[in-house]
């Protein structure tokens, strides 16, 4: 038999070659990894999103030093130390023995029986649960950045606010001096539970702040939802989901909003504050009035201003709630954009 088929697949197929091709095809590089999108607009769950992030960061570094992007780029910070807590966590393709280094650009993965702990450069500690895939984006001083593809992490950060952040397919979680758990599923949806301090989210201009004891869902394509306390009624939580996702008829959502307003107690002020900009314009007055019963608005804050989404007024009212000043968040956001 000629080698034509082996050479370029022309001629009569060689049965052995054809059989081997079919058998070995599942081992080839998956189609999803054969291209490298050139624009990074948001965190993605594609396996090589991480390389895209690295490319983007390399470009940013090069731009900052005024040189071409392809010039050799120093690693984006030192390695972090990872300790195996159970099972066989992997750093990249290697199984972690007991302790090892996790370098920028690598995935840290756990299977169903593995857990690991990360020392975040002396500014905090992160534990990851089984079935988690976490990427390390940056460890430069003042900017520890990770990317949670899926799974669960528990972060305890004692660095100044804003130095530690985790991107997921549906949000970027920014530590504001706190402890929290973050879960992301493979569909890109997630949940954050804050146990102390508070965290901030940013997603395509949509902001969310979550205080200790509260939770918030994040939705792929929509970003963070409205924070609330987990022991509210099922109907309360369903109503929040309906508003966040635009689910159900307008009349049903309005009925849900009234239920939220009627069931809300003082601690739910944080939920109402977020709803001020998330409900229909004609519903904002009702939310304003209910929130004002729990946290009187500062004198310069008006119904009209809040109704139109005036950012300064919203920030002033937030500051009255005792979770910390919004000024700091604005400064941090500006620094983030300028990086």
């Amino acid at each position, binding site marked *: 038999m000629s080698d034509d088929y*082996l050479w370029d697949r022309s001629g009569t197929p060689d049965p052995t070659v054809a059989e*081997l091709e079919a058998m*070995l*095809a599942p*081992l080839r*590089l998956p189609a999803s990894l054969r291209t*490298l999108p*050139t624009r990074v607009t948001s965190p993605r769950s594609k396996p090589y999103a991480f390389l895209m992030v690295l490319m983007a960061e390399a470009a940013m570094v090069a731009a900052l030093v005024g040189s071409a*992007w392809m010039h050799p780029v120093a690693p984006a910070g030192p390695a972090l130390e990872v300790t195996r807590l159970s099972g066989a966590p992997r750093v990249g*393709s290697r199984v972690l023995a007991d302790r090892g280094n996790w370098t920028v650009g690598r995935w840290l993965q756990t299977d169903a029986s593995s857990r690991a702990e990360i020392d975040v450069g002396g500014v905090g500690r992160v534990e990851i649960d089984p079935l988690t895939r976490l990427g390390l984006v940056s460890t430069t001083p003042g900017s520890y950045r990770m990317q949670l593809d899926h799974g669960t992490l528990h972060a305890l950060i004692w660095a100044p606010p804003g130095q530690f952040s985790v991107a997921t397919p549906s949000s970027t979680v920014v530590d504001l001096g706190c402890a929290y758990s973050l879960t992301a599923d493979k569909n890109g949806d997630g949940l954050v539970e804050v146990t102390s301090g508070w965290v901030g989210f940013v997603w395509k201009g949509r902001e969310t702040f979550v205080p200790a004891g509260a939770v918030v869902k994040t939705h792929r394509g929509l970003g963070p939802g409205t924070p609330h306390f987990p022991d509210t009624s099922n109907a309360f939580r369903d109503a929040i989901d309906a508003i966040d996702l635009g689910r159900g008829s307008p009349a049903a959502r309005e009925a849900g909003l009234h239920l939220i307003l009627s069931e809300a107690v003082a601690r739910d002020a944080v939920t109402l504050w977020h709803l001020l900009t998330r409900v229909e314009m004609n519903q904002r007055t009702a939310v304003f009035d209910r929130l004002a019963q729990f946290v009187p608005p500062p004198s310069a804050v008006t119904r009209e201003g809040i109704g139109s989404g005036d950012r300064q007024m919203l920030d002033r009212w937030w500051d009255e709630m005792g979770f910390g000043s919004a000024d700091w968040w604005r400064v941090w956001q500006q620094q983030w954009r300028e990086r």
Partner: protein
Amino acid sequence: MQTMTALARSAPAPTGTGDLVRAAQRGDRDAFATLYSGFARMVHGVLLSRVPHAAAEDLVQDVFIAAMEGLESLREPEAFGGWLCTIARNRATDFLRRSPQMTALPDTLTSLAAGPADRSEALAVLAVIRAMPDAYRETLTLRLVEGMTGPEIAVRTGLTEGSVRVNLHRGMKLLRERLERRPA
């Protein structure tokens, strides 16, 4: 026995590869992405002919990061394919050298995102290919696993078509013999 390195020639690069490399050297990210698309399968194949399947995908990323960082030092843009092959081979060697300290995952374990266990037969055949001489295992992996044709392999790796044809012919002959000798 000729090795792949000894057989390396300056075969014609894919149309525009040199231009793409020069553009990428100037910082053009689109150009680098195009190079990635053109050469990712080759890199994966070269790696897969040396390291366990579970490790190869991660190492592809390593190879392109190394290429990205070192591209400025490439003096002959048309030789990009051969240069990338060398990075991939070195990265695989580095991976295997470190494996005594860092336990390499055996091929019988699938990665978290990998496919079903019925790949075991394919992995067994791949192990046979991996045990073959360098010149054959790379070419056969690119042909039988990655699905590249002989002419494509020549263009991407920088080998002459004659060398690739010889490697495929002799390699396939040896593979048939070794597969026939395998216990049922």
